[in-house]
């Protein structure tokens, strides 16, 4: 291989991972993840003690057996606070309100890095204490908060940016954080699809049938689908195609929109028909951030043009 072709490949690689971009989409990611987390923890408010309290459905003694020493949990905090007379119940509710506040500050982009770290840590405290109640959405949320902590999510549409006299140089942003999210998503769908593929039930429609009809996921009466097994079968194949094909077709510009909207559609279906709306929401947020930036930029240009036109007309009228 000649030197010039090597240089060409390195330039291609460099462009692929470190091309300068505005990364406005990361602001969407920060705001959406923060709002999602407020909504997620808020939806558990009446059950906080049942799920995360020492006297909840899973007692502290059992949790201690299940958790490894390094896993953060609320007891770390409550054991210290009880020494100054603050009960465990107060600690759980106090932490709940602190979490909401921290997420709110993260959403508006005030001291973004600092509050992203805090939000991630409080999330770990809660979901470490309720480890046995964790499901897919919580693991994905942990990853999203972890990324918020590392990525430059406060560079746009943030109070930090507004308070700074000099705007951050957009050229400092590279596409790398987006690539990280893209690779993560590709692995999620590829393994999700492959492991379904080795079974029989996603090929013969039973997988879709069970997803919609099992009592714990049942949202609407879809029993009429039993008369149309072919429909269920095709739906199962579509899920397999979109999941396994995701890493291959999402990077190809011509098929990107189909795959992106197809996968978003699948998650809307999961939210509506299985009631897993939290899982669906966080996956949609991740997908839009990772592969929707070009659409996001177009819309943000459209809205900024719209607002400048409006401003211009107002000026003219004046």
């Amino acid at each position, binding site marked *: 291989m000649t030197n010039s072709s090597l240089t060409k490949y390195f330039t291609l690689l460099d462009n692929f991972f470190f091309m300068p971009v505005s990364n406005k989409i990361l602001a969407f990611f920060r705001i959406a993840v923060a709002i999602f987390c407020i909504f997620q923890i808020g939806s558990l408010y009446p059950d906080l003690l049942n799920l995360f309290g020492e006297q909840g*459905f899973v007692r502290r003694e059992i949790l201690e057996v299940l958790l490894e020493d390094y896993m953060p949990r609320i007891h770390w905090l409550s054991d210290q606070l009880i020494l100054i007379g603050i009960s465990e119940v107060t600690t759980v509710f106090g932490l709940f309100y602190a979490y909401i506040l921290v997420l709110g500050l993260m959403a508006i982009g005030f001291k973004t890095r600092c509050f992203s770290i805090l939000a991630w840590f409080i999330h770990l405290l809660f979901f470490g204490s309720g480890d046995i109640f*964790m499901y897919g959405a919580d693991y994905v949320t942990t990853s999203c908060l972890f990324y918020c902590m590392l990525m430059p999510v406060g560079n746009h549409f943030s109070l930090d940016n507004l308070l700074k006299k000099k705007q951050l140089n957009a050229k400092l942003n590279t596409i790398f954080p987006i690539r990280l999210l893209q*690779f993560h998503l590709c*692995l999620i769908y590829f393994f999700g699809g492959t492991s*379904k593929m080795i079974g029989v039930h996603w090929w013969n429609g039973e997988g879709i049938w069970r997803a919609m009809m099992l009592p714990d996921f049942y949202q609407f009466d879809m029993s009429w689908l039993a008369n149309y097994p072919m429909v269920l079968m095709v739906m199962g194949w579509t899920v397999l195609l979109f999941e396994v094909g995701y890493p291959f077709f999402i990077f190809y510009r011509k098929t990107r929109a189909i795959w992106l909207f197809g996968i978003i559609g699948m998650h809307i279906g999961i939210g509506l028909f299985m009631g897993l709306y939290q899982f669906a929401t966080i996956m949609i947020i991740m997908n839009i951030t990772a592969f929707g930036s070009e659409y996001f930029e177009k819309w943000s240009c459209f809205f900024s043009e719209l607002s400048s036109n409006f401003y211009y007309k107002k000026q003219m009228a004046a």
Partner: protein
Amino acid sequence: MTIFKKIICLAFLFSHCVLIIIANLSEIKGLGQDEETIQQFSLVGQKMIINTKGYLPNNPKALMTKIYTHFAGINTGYCFFSPNVPTPSKVVFELSDSYNNTLTQAPILHTKAGRLRFTVNTSLFKSLKEIRELLAFSWAIRMLEYNPDYNQISVVVGANTLPAIAKYDRAVPLPFTETERYEFELNRE
């Protein structure tokens, strides 16, 4: 961005992705170790799993890696609903007092999100062989706290079986199959 920073970024991306891949392969390996699950694989799938099981990695044992994967939320694979949507376990509590009054209750949770999480908990119950009874005891105590007039409780674990598409009959309600029962008595004195 300097070349050094770029190399660091790429090294991070590479190791992060490798850890995600290991977690997923290890989960697939786990699926292949459960006799009940392996029956749900296609013949090709069964052969594939049997032949590759020995080569698939386990989740990393090194403490630092375990800490990192837990903190990054990548300590588990993404084989959601694979190879099939599992039949979620269901828990029912049968309470009775000293006058033999009885009450049957589902776990008392006030939110839909809470109930969904309890379903996850119940489904994990099967895999936690060593502490099953302790976990049932823990649930029982919570339910007795909610129902202070009762002093005996049976924790009934089972599942609603959904027939296959071809055998499904709208008129027949889903049968509940009891798999385990734990009985506890509370001495309130």
